Structure formats: structure tokens, C-alpha cells
């Protein structure tokens, strides 16, 4: 009186046909993701008359405004990722330790909105708040501090840093929380029970375990801070020259071939940086999960 089992064949047959159902995906991403990247890379090696050349890379490597833009981009990414990582880690710790239930759901949702904010709306909001006539500026002025007393404006590098932090930190909160939740309270209790101080615990167990995911999250923030375009564009209209903006300027409107090729070379530069960051992230992820129990 047993149940007749139909042959479900859920096991992989091991033959080449296994990949068939995934072809739409591979074709789609191959054409719309990989092919443009390859095209840009190829273009960067082409000269005015379509010949192969390394000329497009010379302006970048030899210093001058193009190299400068890379430095600015990297600086911006580094600073905002650092601030975002530290601030975000702190908030992530507070949230995981002290916040429960519905409130936590709400905070997570709000963090998601903040983390995915950026671009034009964010720029405008910050202009409204921290512009020279912004309400937040006035509020702080009323408290006694004039943030415009020095060289600061919202339209400067520092201003961009402030705006970026607005979405970097929440992104860190989202990404780093699982790492903190993964810290078992039994570790802390066992450490105490064995006679160690809090400092010893953090030094020998806590920090070593949290460091790889922290670094991984940092790389993620760096990638975001490096490739962001819309926010700075809307905020500064060109005064802060990060690479995406330089590329945009080269490619906008009536472009000569040489300028387009240079833009491509810059793009390839960005991709190289992205690859380095990506490798760092993958490495950190591997380290983060190596001790995990099944």
C-alpha cells in the first residue's frame, strides 16, 4: 500500500545539457553586462584612426588632471568608507545588542532606504539642509557653531564626504549586522567563566572574529564610494572632479573620437580598481567564513 514515487530526476545528469536552462541568463548577462565591459576595454586601446595603441593611457599615467581625478576618487572612497564603516559598525552593534522585535524591523527598513538613497534626491536634500542658507546650518549656528566659518561649503569635497556618509553608514549597518549577530554570547560567557577580562576577550576572540567581515564590508563601501556618480554630479556640477564625472564630461554632447577613447581608458582604470577591491572583498569573505560551523 505504498505511495508510487514518480521519477523526479532531481539529480544532475552531469552532461553538458545541464547548462541549457541557464542559457537565457548567460546570454542576457553576456550581452548586456560582459560585452559592454569588453567593448570599453577594447576601445581604450584604440587610437583616432582605429589603430591599436596605448596612447589613451598616457595622460592618465603621466600625471595631470586625469591622474588627479583618480586620486580624488580613491581619496573620497577611502574616507567615506572608513567613516561609514566605523560609524556603521557602532550602530550595528547597538542595534543588535539592544533593539528587538518590531522596532528592529522598522530600523532595518529605514536603514535600507538610507543605504539605497543617493543620487539626485539626496544631493538636493543636503543642499536644503546644509547649504549656506540651509536650515540645519542655521540650527547649528543657533547652537553656536558656524560650519561655514572656514572653507567649508556643501559643494566642496568635504561636503561630498558628508553626503556620502549619509548612505555609507546605513549600508554598513545592514551589511555588518549579521557578523555581529553571529557572535555567540556563549563565547563571552565562557571567557568570563575562565577568568578573562573583557579586554582579553575582545583581544583574543572578539576582534579576530569580527575583523574579516569588517574588512569585507569596508571593501563593499569602498566600491560604492568609488563608483558613485549621480550624487556628486547633482551636488557639485563638476567642481569635485572624480573619475566618473571626468568621464561624463568627456562623453557628453559632441564627442571627438579621441575624447571618447580617453574616456574608455579612464573607465578601464576604474574597472581595474574595482577588480582589486573585488578581490579584497572575496578574500575577506573567505576568511570570515572559514571558522563557521556547519
Amino acid at each position, binding site marked *: 500500500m505504498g505511495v508510487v514515487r514518480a521519477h523526479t530526476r532531481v539529480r544532475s545528469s552531469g552532461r553538458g545539457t545541464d547548462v541549457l536552462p541557464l542559457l537565457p541568463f548567460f546570454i542576457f548577462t553576456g550581452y548586456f553586462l560582459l560585452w559592454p565591459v569588453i567593448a570599453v576595454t577594447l576601445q581604450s586601446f584604440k587610437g583616432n584612426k582605429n589603430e591599436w595603441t596605448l596612447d589613451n593611457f598616457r595622460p592618465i599615467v603621466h600625471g595631470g588632471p586625469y591622474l588627479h581625478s583618480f586620486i580624488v576618487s580613491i581619496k573620497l572612497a577611502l574616507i567615506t568608507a572608513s567613516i561609514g564603516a566605523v560609524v556603521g559598525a557602532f550602530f550595528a552593534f547597538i542595534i543588535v545588542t539592544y533593539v528587538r522585535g518590531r522596532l528592529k524591523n522598522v530600523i532595518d527598513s529605514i536603514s535600507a532606504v538610507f543605504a539605497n538613497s543617493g543620487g539626485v534626491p539626496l544631493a538636493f536634500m543636503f543642499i536644503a539642509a546644509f547649504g549656506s542658507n540651509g536650515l540645519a546650518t542655521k540650527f547649528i549656528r543657533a547652537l553656536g557653531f558656524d560650519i561655514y566659518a572656514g572653507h567649508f561649503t556643501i559643494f566642496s569635497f568635504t561636503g561630498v564626504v558628508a553626503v556620502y556618509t549619509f548612505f555609507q553608514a546605513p549600508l554598513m549597518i545592514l551589511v555588518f549586522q549579521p557578523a555581529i549577530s553571529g557572535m*555567540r554570547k*556563549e*563565547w563571552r*560567557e*565562557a*571567557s*568570563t*567563566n*575562565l*577568568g*578573562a*577580562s573583557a579586554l*582579553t576577550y575582545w583581544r*583574543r*576572540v572578539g576582534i*579576530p*572574529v569580527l575583523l574579516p567581515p569588517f574588512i569585507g564590508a569596508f571593501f563593499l563601501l569602498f566600491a560604492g564610494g568609488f563608483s558613485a556618480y549621480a550624487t556628486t554630479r547633482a551636488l557639485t556640477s563638476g567642481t569635485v572632479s572624480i573619475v566618473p564625472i571626468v568621464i561624463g564630461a568627456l562623453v557628453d554632447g559632441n564627442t571627438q573620437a579621441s575624447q571618447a577613447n580617453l574616456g574608455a581608458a579612464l573607465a578601464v582604470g576604474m574597472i581595474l580598481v574595482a577588480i582589486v577591491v573585488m578581490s579584497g572583498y572575496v578574500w575577506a569573505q573567505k576568511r570570515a567564513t572559514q*571558522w*563557521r*560551523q*556547519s
Partner: protein
Amino acid sequence: MSKKDRISSTLELRGVSRHFGQVKALDGLDLLLEPGELVALLGPSGCGKTTALRIVAGLEVATAGELLVNGDRYNETPANARDMGMVFQSYSLFPNLTVSENIDYGLRARKIDSAKRSKRVTKMLELVALESKAKSYPHQLSGGQQQRVALARALAIEPRVLLLDEPLSALDAQVRSQIREEIRRIQLELGITTLFVTHDQEEAMAIADRVGVMNQGKLEQIDKPTTLYNNPATPFVASFVGQANRIPAEVSGAGNVKVLAQKIPLSPLSTVSEKTKSVIALVRPEAIHLTDSNDSESWRGLVAVKSFLGPMTTLGVASEEMPLIHINLSSKDARKIEIGDVVAFKISADEIMVESA
């Protein structure tokens, strides 16, 4: 001072309570562990046993009462200065440290020099038979191996008291009995005073010198396992420890219980008010015997279930107006009985414990 002197301490809880607002997790617990004794705290979840253990360890604070080790008050002593070794239910090994480094952890915290430390670590590894795994990481070990390391780590610091918080609950059944025996063997060898918390009564009964049954923050009875089993002091203990049939019965005036077709004296430990008539009688399966005779005192029913348990077999007998009654008998005797047979049986106990219906 020999090692044995240092390890065998007395542990006493006097009127220890823990209140969370209105909730009483622990209500006036009195407990005294003699040197070298293994006492198990047994009870369902929420009964307060883990709270009691954590108060001893210093991971929670008592709202009332005293904790004494060798007569010294420990209430204010910080958790990391109590010299007690604790083994948790699971996941307590430091994942980024090897087995040796885990065991070494408490010794390093005490600033013991490295030569002495490595000798001690080696000794602990031998004690739990895991020398080959010294350089392995926790995630490379099985559940049973991890708990053995946790035990070695707790004992490495030569604690006054050993505390075990449901150390076997997360393990597979087979591994559970092995590790349980190892814990007892090591505990006896070292003569260390031990408090063992569990919800599994078989575990508690198998290895403890005394077992304390807890319910809703209170200690209902603490005795040797055999005493607990044969002379339960309250209905809760009777039904929690060992199996018990719950048979509707009636209290008759003369201090007797009319259960099934018999009249058996009421146990003085029962907690029912004078006026109660309808009660639930608690009868152990092995206190019921099949009988050939058809006298007026035997009860008849149909064998509905037959469970072979190795040396013993349990029959589930269905009868009119009664819940399924379980009867234990030797498998040899059970051979001639089949499902569907009609059997006659009697209770052969001197007293019956009852609780209100």
C-alpha cells in the same frame, strides 16, 4: 595542598531567588552539595534549573539569598574570579582558536608560565582522549568531540566546582550516552563537586549521586535516583520521573482509592483536599501485572499496542472508559501476547499517589 583538596569544595545555595518583576524564575532554593558530589538538577524548561546554575556561575545575579562555596559568601564575587569551570550546551568553543589554544585560554588568563601551561594542556587532552586533535579548529570536530574539548577547557583551570548546563542536549543519542559516561568517569576520578543541569531524566538518573527535581522555580524533591523513582514525594515528581499511567479514580472515605477494580490505600504524600472525590491515580507501568485469574479485582482490556524495547516490552491496553494503560513486562513473558488479545491485569502497589483531576 593536594589537588584533591583544592577541587573538592562544598557548594551551598541558601534561599536563592531570582525575580523578574512578577515572574519568579527561582523561588527560595536551598541546595547543599557535599565535596565530590555530582548533583543533577532536573526539570522541564522554565523550571529555574538553568537560572540556578547561572547564578552559581555568576552570569546572573540572585535577587535574594546566599551563595556559599566552602562557607565563603560568593554573591559579590565577579564571575571571572569564581574559579568555577562551566560547560555550555553548545557553541561555546572559541572558533578562531585551536583545541589546544581553547584549553589554554583560562590558563593564559591566569598568567601561568608557558611551560606549566603546555604540560597542563597535554594532560587535559589525554584526559578526554583528544591528543590527535590538538591543532584542529572547533568547526572540524564533531559535536561530541567539541563537548569533550569544552570539558577539558573547563577543568584545565582546576576549578573548585564544575558546572554543566545541559551539555548533552545538542548531541546525537548514541554520542550522548558515551559522553555522559565520560563526564561521570572524569568527575569521579578528579573528585570534583559538580552541578549538572538537564531536562532528560534518564541522563540525570544514570550518573548523578543525587537528583533534584525542580518545577516552577521550586525544588520539589532531592534524593538518590532510586529513592526518587520508588518514593516520589509529590505528584509532579511521580509523573516527571519515570513513566506513569494517569488513571481516573475515586477517593473513598476510608483513606482508600478506588482505581480500576481495586481498592488501594491512598499515599499520604498525595496533595488533594479532603473533599475531593475524583482524582487521577499515578501508576507505574511495572506496577501493573497480567493475571490469569478472572476474579472481581482484575481489569480486562484489549492489547492495542505492543512496543519491543529490548529486554522489556510495553503493552498499551485499551479498556472501557479508561485511557490507554501501559504495562511493562519482560519480553520473554510478552512473547505469547499478540495485538488484539484480551488480557486481564491488576495493580500490585502498596499505596497509590494521586493528584486532583
